[in-house]
């Protein structure tokens, strides 16, 4: 890293902007704007700052439609939207995937369209923190806001998460370094533990590094739980960690005044998957009998939590909700994007603010290549190569305002700082347009003639007796 002199050539500053990168949603950013472009960002980490400042890098500027030769060609908005609307209207098993890098306002339009047409709505949780959601449905979910961590936490554990690299300001703003109300000496008042097979950058600035074996997560947590409950370990080491070290760690955890476990994909995607999180949640619950503990999944995209929250209050389920029958169905392994694609079910795929081309397994992407794919995004990515229609959106929190939910569930209204490129449109507008066009092309599917209450409502019992 070389020295970069501070930027002094700017027109004005927009304060308290929100970072649209990771799940930290840092809302204390100052954008330095010159000629309708953010030339510098104050307070942000390198990830956030570069995303905001390099917003025109590989930017999708104009709508495109794949022509008969299979080449994406630029076109006008009407043609692109009509083509996309036709693809959706002519499909019988559409999947709308993504949503984690756009606002809840945009999701609202998408859900309306999805319910109308009978689509599956899913987000990136299906390939990242899905196991965490699954585990919380098994075991519970003791969480806290990040301010609570700042003010109270004296023991902070990162498990399977290299926050230093993935959520760089997480340590600085909340978990490790800041002076909290009850932690006035900041870093010196906290014990930081990193559990990771790798000696990561987060481990480097921790007080304890527990480098258990790869895929040793479940066994290791199991051992911790046993020790918490006063049991003696039978073997000399568990998952490659000597028994004494586990006793020592449990001692630290039990004596915490306020402990927090942050876990990332290192825990959700090793052998055991959601069972790892199950047992981590159980461990936190056990610890609450003698101390105060909470946990928080280190959500990746800035609004990935927002989609789960949004879907939960709109439909009752967090992700992978299938409306094809006229009511919501949620069944992991059945109504999730990867499973659907691998089974070659979808016949139309809309990806909104996500990049399946880069992240999905090959088998899933192979099917994507065979069906119409509509991409609503701001940047070029492998998904663009799969797309048949490309609709360039705008950058939430920079060019367009919207609501997002931080990893701990705190909602933030991300304001607009500059104008979007003239040829682009807001995500919300694009999806609304699509919705209206689809509605013109096709009748609503699977509408019941009359409302039939669910038997659980117990009206049946009364009717029988009539």
């Amino acid at each position, binding site marked *: 890293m070389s020295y970069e002199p501070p930027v002094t050539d700017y027109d004005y500053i927009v304060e308290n902007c929100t970072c649209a990168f990771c799940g930290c949603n840092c809302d204390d950013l100052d954008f330095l704007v010159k000629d309708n472009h953010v030339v510098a960002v104050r307070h942000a980490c390198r990830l956030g700052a570069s995303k905001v400042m390099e917003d025109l890098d590989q930017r999708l500027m104009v709508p495109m439609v794949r022509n008969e030769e299979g080449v994406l060609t630029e076109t006008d908005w009407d043609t692109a939207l009509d083509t996309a609307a036709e693809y959706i209207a002519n499909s019988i098993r559409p999947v709308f995937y993504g949503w984690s890098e756009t606002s809840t306002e945009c999701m609202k339009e998408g859900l309306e369209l999805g319910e109308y047409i009978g689509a599956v709505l899913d987000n990136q949780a299906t390939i990242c923190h899905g196991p965490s959601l699954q585990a919380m449905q098994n075991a519970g979910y003791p969480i806290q806001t990040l301010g609570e961590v700042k003010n109270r936490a004296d023991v902070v554990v990162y498990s399977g998460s290299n926050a230093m690299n993935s959520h760089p300001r997480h340590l600085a703003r909340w978990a490790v370094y800041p002076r909290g109300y009850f932690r006035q000496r900041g870093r010196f008042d906290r014990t930081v533990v990193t559990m990771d097979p790798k000696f990561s950058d987060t481990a480097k600035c921790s007080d304890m590094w527990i480098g258990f074996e790869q895929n040793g997560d479940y066994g290791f947590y199991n051992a911790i739980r046993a020790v918490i409950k006063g049991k003696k370990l039978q073997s000399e080491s568990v998952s490659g960690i000597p028994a004494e070290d586990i006793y020592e760690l449990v001692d630290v955890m039990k004596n915490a005044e306020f402990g927090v476990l942050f876990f990332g994909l290192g825990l959700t995607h090793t052998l055991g998957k959601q069972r790892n999180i199950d047992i981590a949640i159980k461990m936190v619950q056990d610890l609450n009998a003698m101390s105060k503990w909470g946990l928080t999944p280190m959500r990746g995209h800035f609004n990935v939590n927002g989609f789960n929250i949004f879907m939960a*209050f709109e439909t009752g389920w967090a992700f992978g909700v299938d409306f094809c029958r006229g009511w919501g169905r*949620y069944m992991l392994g059945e109504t999730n994007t990867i499973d659907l694609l691998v089974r070659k079910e979808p016949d139309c795929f809309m990806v909104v603010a996500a990049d399946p081309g880069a992240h999905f397994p090959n088998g899933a992407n192979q099917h994507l290549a065979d069906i119409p794919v509509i991409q609503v995004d701001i940047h070029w990515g492998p998904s663009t190569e799969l797309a048949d229609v490309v609709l360039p959106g705008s950058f939430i929190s920079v060019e367009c305002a919207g609501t997002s939910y931080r990893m701990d569930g705190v909602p933030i209204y991300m304001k607009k700082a500059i104008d979007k490129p003239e040829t682009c449109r807001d995500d919300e507008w694009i999806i609304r347009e699509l919705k209206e066009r689809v509605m013109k092309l096709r009748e609503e599917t699977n509408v019941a003639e009359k409302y039939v209450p669910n038997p659980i409502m117990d009206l049946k019992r*009364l009717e029988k007796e009539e």
Partner: protein
Amino acid sequence: MEYILKNGIVYDPQNEINGETMDIFIKDDQIAESVSDDAKVIDVSNKIVMPAGVDVHAHVAGPKLVLGRLYRPEDSRMGVSQKTKIERAEAGFSIPCCPTTGYRYSRMGYGTVCEAAMPPLEAKHTHEEIATIPNIDINPVTLFGNNWFCMEYAREGRIEEMAAYIAAMLRVSKGYGVKIVNPCGSEAWGWGQNVHGYDDKAPYFDVTSRQLVVALAKANEMLGLPHSIHIHPNDLGHPGNYPTTVETLKSIKEIKKSTKKAAKIRDQTVHNTHLQFHAYDGTSWKDASSGADKVADFINHNDYVTGDVGQVTFDETTTMTADAPMEYDLFQISGLKWANKDIECETAAGIIPCIYSPKTPVGTLQWAIGLELFLLVDNPWQICMSTDHPNAGPFIRYPRIISWLMSAPRRMEMIENGEVHKWSHKRTGLAGLDREYDFYEIATITRAAPAKIHGFPDRGALTPGYKADIAVYDVNPNDFDPSRNPEMVERIFTSAAYTIKDGQILVKDGDLVATKPSHVIWTDVKGWEREEAQVLNEMMPFFTQYYSVKWENYQVHDHFLSNPIKVEVPAK
């Protein structure tokens, strides 16, 4: 649009109309003295006409609701039904999703619901959900009972600053009133502890719940808010907790009710919510018994107190409360999946599924205590219908509760045929109570009293000029004996013949015929601007240092408000 509801049998307790046959006129969104000849006539002869229901206390929108939905997909699956041309697909039983909540309230003839706990930090979330709930107006009350600033003001006795702070926070969070949950207890939960009794101190804050509650009540009356303090006292759900409840209510006795216009509608200076959970005698669950008679006796002798019951309905439900330590206690008893959410500097929340079974002693005891409270409090204006939805049961069970209240034989039948556990009569006095509610009293506890308690100047009655929020139920009270037909009572109140909201027919014969966006009701205190600015100025360094968001991003922007109804509380 103009309507005449012709020949209905009207129950309107606020106007002391008890079963008179009369016409109700609707002009646009209001009830009118008269209408023109073009008015559409709806024949409701031999049907009951009441103001639309007002729910005094329910949890229908907000972060902990969503947490419940996120981690209980099994509950969402329990209530699914297919979409129609009018309504979206339904989902959920104890914690239905937002659209479903609105539809189900509408079918029961409800028009207004109080969302009983809104943490200011996540108020935007609550408002997003309110905007998603159709058909009912919602007034969210803001949580102050474990707020660090309030605790500091209470300790230092700075009531005026506290009042200014409340005024500012109501505007920031777009809240309606002052909610207190387990004062000091949820703060203690920040360290895994709880407070025990009314005179226990929150750790590090050197302030007792008594000091805090009294200060909040004084500040509330100083501002002259439309609603009194809305309190969930300490020791919820613990055997032997009734003295804490009585102590809490007693401590408000000397506080004078505000004489300001907005506060004139209500009579009370304290509203104690879900009293059932706070009326236990005994020392442990082994010897627990009902303390309902003592609590009811206190309410009967003190007209500055109102309450709602929190009636247990024998369902599988999801308990969720800002009383987080209590939820952890429940977890240790039941071992079911436990969720928790602590919110910095403000509050905490806990969630756990709960199965209230009539076969278990504790569930039955709670059921009986709830009914006892309904039957022992003499004045129906002082006790309201609630299940503390979803804590003691889902709101769709209100009609069933009504059937229990209207039918002593049904209650005795449940006790005698062993439908409920024997603690129902061995540990409570329920078997000795033969009081039965009539339709007038039911109208009082489900609409008139809740509206009055919340200080609504525009609903809860059929007065001309009020909102045209009306429910019609298909029964002729003159040739119907609710005491002998409890199941019919339940059926009648489950599906309204008509639900009219803001002059628009939403439900006909129990089916939705239309939906409309909801309104959010919030309180805007005027005339405290200087004090508010001073208080905010003083708190700002603290806020910047110890909150995790910026002040600008903390406030609820107008963008989030769904058709707001602003209740202005004029200058001092």
